[in-house]
């Protein structure tokens, strides 16, 4: 009886410890989200989503130009980086043992660990300095460089999880290797790959450093990727480091909007690639 009680006690203590660990892990997340909502929500209004910033001293205005800018810059980056990352991931997974695959994987890991500001300087040297002016395209290139290795590594890992039996079943039906990879393997791994791509999008959406000396920021609505463009992280940076209390307030609200934009993108992509069987039940 005593031993059983001791065991029960030990078990309860361990469960309690794990509970504390979980709490510690999620606490920062809720603290950040909570303070964002508390401080940012009060100025959140429709005008914030549809207007440009008001001149200093006037109230109202919004960050619509930066929402648009972030969507354009991140959108262009994703358009190029996601397909390239997925293709590289397929290659590294399907041709696992080859030297080229090993080199690709190594380079991706190095790139994954490169500070984003370094990638920003690279984009500045290659694009901004050569062209002689700042541009949203240069920002997209910097963000794209950050996205490719992230997308590639998730794709590779998820493709490796697809059972060999499934692959062989497709080959045994007379499918070519390419068709097997695209129609069966990639389709099976797709939901996970989309999640991975989304994580990459979410991460680069908040990147500020690479945009500072590429997209630069702007006060106007723009769709021209050959010119400077506003972006939410740049707005947050500018307002948070500015001298006016009203700007600080705007920075909080812009941060909240940034998180909301990422959240909406995430939900949309999940809906688009959902398992039509599982979810419709």
């Amino acid at each position, binding site marked *: 009886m005593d031993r059983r009680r001791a065991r029960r006690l030990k078990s309860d203590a361990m469960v309690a410890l794990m509970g504390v660990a979980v709490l510690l892990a999620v606490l920062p997340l809720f603290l950040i989200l909570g303070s964002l909502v508390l401080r940012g929500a009060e100025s959140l209004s429709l005008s914030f989503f549809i207007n440009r910033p008001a001149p200093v001293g006037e109230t109202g205005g919004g960050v619509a130009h930066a929402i648009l800018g972030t969507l354009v810059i991140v959108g262009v980056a994703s358009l190029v980086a996601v397909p390239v990352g997925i293709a590289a991931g397929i290659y590294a997974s399907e041709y696992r*043992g080859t030297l080229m695959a090993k080199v690709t994987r190594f380079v991706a890991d190095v790139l994954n660990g490169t500070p984003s500001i370094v990638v920003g300087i690279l984009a500045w040297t290659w694009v901004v300095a050569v062209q002689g002016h700042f541009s949203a395209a240069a920002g997209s290139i910097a963000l794209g460089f950050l996205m490719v290795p992230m997308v590639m590594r998730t794709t590779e890992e998820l493709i490796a999880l697809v059972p060999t*039996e*499934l692959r062989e079943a497709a*080959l*045994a*039906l*007379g499918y070519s290797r390419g068709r097997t990879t695209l129609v069966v393997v990639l*389709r*099976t791994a797709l939901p996970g790959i989309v999640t991975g791509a989304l994580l990459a999008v979410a991460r680069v959406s908040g990147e500020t450093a690479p945009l500072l000396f590429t997209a630069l920021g702007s006060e106007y609505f723009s769709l021209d990727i050959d010119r400077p463009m506003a972006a939410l992280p740049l707005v947050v940076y500018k307002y948070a480091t500015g001298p006016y209390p009203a700007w600080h307030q705007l920075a909080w609200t812009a941060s909240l909007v940034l998180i909301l934009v990422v959240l909406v993108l995430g939900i949309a992509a999940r809906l688009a690639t959902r398992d039509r*069987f599982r979810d419709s039940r």
Partner: protein
Amino acid sequence: MIPDSASASAIRTERLTAAYGELRAVYEVSLDLEPHRVHALIGPSGCGKSTFLRTLNRLHEMTPGAWVKGQVLLHGEDVYASDVSPMRLRRRVGMVFQKPTPFPFYSIAQNVSAGLVTDRGLSKADVTNRVEESLRRAALWDEVKDRLGADARGLSGGQQQRLCIARTIAPRPEVVLLDEPTASLDPQGTQRIEELVFDLKREFTIIIVTHNMQQAARVADTTSFFYMGAMVEHAETKRLFTAPVDSRTEAYVTGRFG
């Protein structure tokens, strides 16, 4: 490519050796398998029976480092000849695996028609007909006819395996390879597959790998005993089980090892 006297056999192998790098899994196996019969391959684990099966549709060579020596003749044609496309060959020699492998994200009907997409000559109506025909032959039609558009993963293990059989026979192959098709099924599911195998031999030549000797005795017309990569004995099933010639075959079928 020239039909000779040997073309009376559906599949014939000539001193076939199959290996993974240095490891020879199958060694100099010569077998002659007649059409429209069920042939069982038995033997202890690791005896090479599955590897042998995988050389017949050239799936073996998809494993990195795998190689083959000797010949496999499908109706007298060398399947390893340089002008033979493995993809086209695999449409003539279908295969069903140990674990049911329905494609996820495919409905029941899409799973059955999966092997038909490579056939450009088929119209939409042809495909629909072929799906029904194949499901009927696989004895699954009555159970799924009202939910052809449903998720194939919602079927039971036995139904999934019959679905895979339907998918395999839909392109109308000449030979059907079954690699321990009932290993993951319950007794009821096993029985249905065995009955199905018996029916299917009218249209197809069937080669079944099994580690279950009773199963071989129940379904097969001829049985080959494999041991350590070699084909030890090949005979009419009844003869192999009641009057084996080789002492190793006798030891195995009487349950003294394996």
